[in-house]
């Protein structure tokens, strides 16, 4: 093992340990202020980043990028001119941040370990390979910072930095398509930046502050513009429909990038922001966000049904679940918040696991499309096992995602009394979760479809690939154990069925299988080969359009509603 690898692994371990330590050590919120030097530094950095964006826009002649960079500069200038008077601490670590640390460092760390081997098999120069790993670490740092900050200005900077990271990483391969998608990600994410700046301006104008906690505690139900703009920023980062394209485009990047940026961690900024903001939401905002969130959940799952590129399916299902997380956060009952957190954690683990498998499929089997993966059982039972666990953990009990969905229904059901419009959220949720199940099983069954005769093609998979997967698996198990401890479901409800479902069939199997004879499948008495292929669902373009229009409409309603 090379020194670099060792040090990377050690570093990841340290990070993980720290984040774990954080959860146990500091129970209470931790606050801190940064010296003024830093603030000046941040302003400088902001300027540099925005200029860089502008430069890139000019370089690649991309009008949106230029436009948004300019708009941001203008707005940022405006922010600089205003000087708020109410101050608070710059750094604030609360429980939610602690959970986010865990996700970012442990899951992100594992993905970096995976990336070590992945990037080795690419054809880049050594420097570029190393800088790739470095970029990932840089990104972890930004993420850690972003969940700790309480200052919206700093938040803006970090937000822009994540945009920068994704821009660089998506364009990492340097080909035509990567460049195009990177620019797309860039301009879309800049909309988020614009939204944050707007939020800043309104916040300063109305509440005279740039701090989250002050803003939230002081906000009046009648003047929620800053909150709404922050929410919009969250939607952009969460790649909610209609902003989903940048995340889907991001799939051209090396798989660890997809995993770390676009599924497991970065997009989690969106629900995180929501979690921060929910106390300030009025009934209207919370309802609208919930509706938009569940709508996104529903429609992204629907759209995913028509896809056959494995990573794209994963991406869309991420978008869907992010929608759900944001909706849950917006509801804001304790139950919903728990559900949201559980979902964040489990989703990160499961998606990371799945993305790692996507990477393995790509590297070891040269597969990208789900249509081609049939009979994988014979070639690598381990990968299939991981994929199945990954999907199962997103749908089935006893895994957290299931529990979260379960609790989501409960909390939305509880809200209907307050506002009947939550019925729609419920319907979206119900339909969406069925679509998602459909989606997962559509892919999963493909794995099962056995090609009986190519046993010989068994493929050995590198340890670097399997160990991270095993680690994630372990995390899943720990998660299940914790949710068990917390008694989300009674033990009768969980243990008995699990035991019975697992044991009884095996018992029968062992008793009966010795006596059983093997037969071929029924084929109308014929003997020829059967050609199987997957059912696929074609979404007409106008459905996609309608969905985008509806989602955009929802956001406009959000803004306009608050304005009125």
């Amino acid at each position, binding site marked *: 093992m090379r020194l670099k690898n060792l040090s990377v692994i050690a570093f990841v371990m340290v990070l993980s340990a720290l984040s774990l330590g954080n959860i146990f050590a500091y129970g209470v919120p931790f606050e801190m202020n940064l010296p003024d030097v830093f603030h000046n530094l941040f302003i400088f950095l902001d300027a540099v980043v925005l200029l860089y964006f502008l430069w890139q826009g000019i370089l690649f002649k991309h009008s949106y990028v230029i436009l948004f960079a300019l708009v941001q500069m203008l707005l940022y200038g405006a922010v600089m001119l205003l000087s708020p008077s109410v101050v608070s601490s710059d750094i604030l670590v609360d429980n939610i941040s602690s959970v986010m640390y865990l996700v970012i460092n442990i899951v992100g760390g594992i993905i970096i370990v995976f990336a070590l081997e992945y990037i080795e098999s690419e054809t880049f120069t050594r420097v570029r390979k190393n800088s790739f790993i470095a970029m990932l670490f840089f990104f972890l740092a930004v993420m850690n910072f972003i969940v700790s900050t309480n200052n919206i200005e700093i938040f803006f900077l970090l937000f822009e930095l994540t945009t920068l990271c994704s821009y660089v990483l998506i364009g990492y391969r340097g080909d035509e398509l990567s460049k195009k998608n990177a620019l797309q990600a860039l301009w879309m994410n800049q909309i988020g930046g614009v939204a944050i700046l707007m939020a800043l301006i309104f916040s300063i104008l109305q509440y005279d502050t740039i701090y989250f906690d002050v803003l939230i505690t002081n906000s009046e139900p009648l003047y929620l513009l800053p909150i709404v703009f922050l929410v919009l920023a969250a939607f952009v980062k969460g790649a909610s429909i209609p902003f989903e394209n940048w995340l889907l485009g991001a799939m051209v990047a090396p798989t660890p990038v997809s995993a770390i940026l676009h599924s497991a961690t970065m997009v989690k900024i969106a629900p995180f922001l929501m979690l921060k903001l929910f106390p300030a939401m009025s009934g209207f905002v919370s309802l609208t966000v919930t509706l938009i969130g569940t709508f996104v959940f529903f429609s992204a799952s629907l759209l995913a049904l028509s896809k056959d590129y494995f990573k794209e399916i994963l991406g869309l299902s991420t978008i869907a679940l992010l929608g759900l997380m944001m909706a849950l956060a917006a509801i804001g009952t304790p139950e919903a918040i728990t559900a949201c957190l559980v979902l964040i954690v489990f989703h990160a683990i499961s998606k990371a696991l799945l993305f790692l498998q996507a990477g393995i499929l790509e590297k070891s089997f040269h597969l990208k499309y789900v249509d081609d993966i049939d009979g994988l059982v014979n070639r690598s039972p381990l990968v299939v096992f991981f994929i199945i666990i990954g999907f199962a953990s997103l749908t089935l009990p006893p895994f957290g995602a299931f529990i979260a969905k379960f609790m989501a229904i409960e909390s939305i059901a509880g809200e209907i009394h307050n506002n009947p419009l939550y019925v729609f959220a419920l319907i979206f949720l119900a339909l969406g979760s069925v679509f998602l199940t459909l989606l997962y099983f559509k892919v999963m069954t493909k794995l099962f479809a056995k090609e009986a005769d190519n046993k010989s093609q068994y493929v050995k998979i590198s340890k670097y690939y399997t160990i991270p997967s095993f680690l994630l698996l372990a995390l899943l198990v720990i998660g299940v154990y914790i949710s068990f401890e917390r008694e989300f479901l009674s033990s009768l409800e969980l243990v008995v069925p699990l035991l019975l479902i697992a044991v009884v069939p095996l018992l029968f199997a062992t008793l009966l299988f010795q006596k059983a004879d093997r*037969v071929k499948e029924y084929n109308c*008495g014929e*003997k020829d080969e059967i050609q199987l292929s997957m059912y696929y669902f074609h979404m007409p373009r106008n459905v996609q359009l309608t969905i985008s229009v509806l989602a955009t409409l929802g956001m406009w309603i959000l803004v306009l509603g608050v304005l009125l």
Partner: protein
Amino acid sequence: MYEKYRKKSPWILHYNAGSCNGCDIEILAALAPKYDLERFGVINTGNPKQSDIFLITGPVTLRSRERIVELYTQIPEPKVVVAVGSCSCTGGVFRDMYNVEDGVDRYIPVDVYIPGCAVSPELIIDGVVKGLDILEQKTKEMEKPFKLFQEATTKDGITSRRETPLRVGEDNEKN
């Protein structure tokens, strides 16, 4: 101990091995209200794996022989094969034609032969009832189909596909 239930729940599979449809529609008629085979617990499953009684009509054309054997082996033991109609018993009017093989029992062991052209639904019921008794006595031993293709043209020393067709009464006829 379960044997006695076999005869109460015969599920059938029907295959037409080249018949003229006459017997097949009579099987349908036997399922219809007037004769209602379901009284005996018969279900027409259409799936060999869930069947007990194999109803075959037709004299077995060359193209259907493999299918018969294939379906036969897919029926789990104990099973009963019923040849429905004269042409599946012995070839009937098609006996000796070049593309048929004189009855189902050239290929698989037949337990019950139902004569008639076309068999009447009553006879089908008779045959199925007879088959049920046989089913009860059967063991779960595998019964092998006799032959697959043309490999052997003789069974029990008897040639089935004769080189020259037997023409009854042709010899002294000159009109």
